[in-house]
């Protein structure tokens, strides 16, 4: 009996240590972001500031084009989330429920494209957008990510689990396929749609490589790109930087907290079937 208790204690001890490793860095950056002293590199470092302030958060807003970057990030994320949910479910519906010539080949080719490493597309995509004068525009930032194959795949998988008799009655009544999709399939697909939406939201919000290449002026930066540049520019002002990183992290964290269930489902189903 005693042995089991000790084991349990040890188990929780290890668990707490692990937890600390995973969230500790965020807690410390939170603590630095409230530090009134700009010089946090005095040794030995202070994990808890002597003097607390909200000044760093104010400065992020006042001294940096944070508002503009926030606007860009929000615009891109919202547009990409909406288009992904809409077009991925529409295409997923077509692949799951409609018969048309070339269906299997097209789907196989799409799935195959998942194996293509993104890095090989980088230079050609850049040159194509440059030919269309789309570098440093919202269109250039958004276009390549409007729909992704993974999302189509997720939606197709989900729609295939919906029983056929649900739509058959509607078909006999002469409903159009779009109405079947819109009025019958979508309402019962909320978990899958939510998974796609959350996935896309997180992906767009955090995307770094593409915006860093496609934006050239400061007013077109997204938040991650802006922060990466600030890191170079204000790298001695850690409290300011940390305040910025905390602000960027909040939206994804909030969404994750509220929709945890769907998130986990999405990752899980992608994992099992991929």
């Amino acid at each position, binding site marked *: 009996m005693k042995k089991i208790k000790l084991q349990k204690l040890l188990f929780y001890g290890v668990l707490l240590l692990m937890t600390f490793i995973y969230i500790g860095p965020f807690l410390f950056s939170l603590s630095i972001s409230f530090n009134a002293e700009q010089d946090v590199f005095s040794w030995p470092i202070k994990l808890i500031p002597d003097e607390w302030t909200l000044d760093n958060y104010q400065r992020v807003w006042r001294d940096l084009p944070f508002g503009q970057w926030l606007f860009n990030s929000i615009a891109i994320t919202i547009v990409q989330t909406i288009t992904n949910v809409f077009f991925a479910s529409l295409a997923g519906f077509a692949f799951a429920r409609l018969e048309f010539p070339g269906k299997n080949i097209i789907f196989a080719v799409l799935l195959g494209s998942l194996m293509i490493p993104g890095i090989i597309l980088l230079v050609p995509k850049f040159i194509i957008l440059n030919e269309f004068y789309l570098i440093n525009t919202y269109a250039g930032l958004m276009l390549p990510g409007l729909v992704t194959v993974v999302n189509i795949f997720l939606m197709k998988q989900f729609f295939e689990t919906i029983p056929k008799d649900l739509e058959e009655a509607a078909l006999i009544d002469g409903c159009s396929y779009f*109405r079947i*999709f819109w009025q019958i399939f979508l309402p019962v697909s909320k978990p899958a749609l939510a998974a796609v939406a959350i996935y896309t939201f997180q992906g767009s919000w955090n995307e770094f490589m593409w915006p860093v290449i496609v934006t050239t002026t400061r*007013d077109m930066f997204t938040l991650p790109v802006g922060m990466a540049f600030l890191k*170079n520019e204000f790298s001695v002002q850690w409290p300011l930087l940390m305040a910025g990183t905390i602000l960027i992290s909040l939206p994804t964290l909030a969404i994750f907290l509220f929709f945890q269930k769907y998130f986990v489902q999405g990752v899980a189903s992608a994992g099992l079937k991929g």
Partner: protein
Amino acid sequence: MKNGQNFLAFIILAFVLVASCSPPGSDTMRLSSWVSSPSETELYKQTLANFRDQNPDTDFKYEPIPGNYSEKLQLMLGTRTAPDLFYLKGMTAPSYMSFGILNPLDELIAQTPDFDVDDFYPFALEAFQLDGVQYGLPKDFNPYVLFYNKKLFREAGIDTIPTNWKEFEQMCTQLTKDLDSDGKSDQFGFIVEPSVEMVMPFVYQNNGHFQNPDGSLGITDEPFIEALEFYYGLYQKGIATIGQDQGVTWNGDAFGREISAMAISGGWLMPFMKDNYPDVDYGVAPLPAGKRRATVAFTTAYSMPKSTKFEGEAWQLLDFLVGKEGMSSWTNTGVAMPTRRSVAEENGFHEHPIYKVFMESAEFASPFQVQYSERGFEEVVVAFQAIFFTDKPPRKAMEDIESQIKKYRLVGSKNN
């Protein structure tokens, strides 16, 4: 079915509207610079405000470029999103000029009778010429000089400034101290930086070159290696420190915190000190001499891209910024030295106790310009890092990259 098509069409239309609503403003002229200290930015904005007051009809947008300036500018030039007027570093000017992407300025200069191009110091003008064509007009220059902390000098019992390498090394030793007696030095004589620009003054003082006058590569020649060994030796002997060891990002910061008693920098250190470390009492002196007196001078010019749609407006602004009035207002805090002889004379730069050090240094300064692409610089920086961070012998490090760097020699003007 109809319903669905309408809806689809609506979604696509909505997207197109959102996507196309705001490409970056190409309806006004844009001006770009890199970002420096807050007080420098303030000063620059003031100069620009003066222009606006005098030319209310010429509208322009000021877009500073944070981060890696050269890289971003290059990307902008290649994607036709470049600003209509921008800073051009003297160091990168040869490659930009050879690409044929800059707007020649000779005609504009000729059309502006009171521009007085002969007023500029020739060395500054020549840095932005290729085959006799002027591609940029120098707004200012800045030689490297020696900053020294008067208090720390006094504490170490030093009442002179170093005039040659031997004295310099000696003073570094005297100024290096273990203040809290924990067995490790926490005050150093000097701070080094593994970059080409920082090593070059010592190379020039030792009669060496990065690229010899005959065009050959000089980095494995004896004078270059000797200078590099001397510079690295200061760090190796523990009488100089390096930014990474102290958690500072640049030399000026270490100097301000009194971690190093001396630092080599251009005039930009002065506004930085005023903003961040106003209490540090420092002096400015010409660099100590080696076999000869030498230093590196940086010049920056304004240039326009060939593709600009605002040539007239951009010239108007350029004319103001490098004109006598604009240059006076920009250089009067010593952030950089004027490139016009008349401005320097009228504002007493030769008599001012600190500025005159910069003006005197200009007499024996060389610009750092070589005919190699950015990749070549990168290789040298990497080799320097290997020396400072992995104790690779300087001679070996330079020999290892010599053949690689030769490949990055610019072949000159490729088109027309």
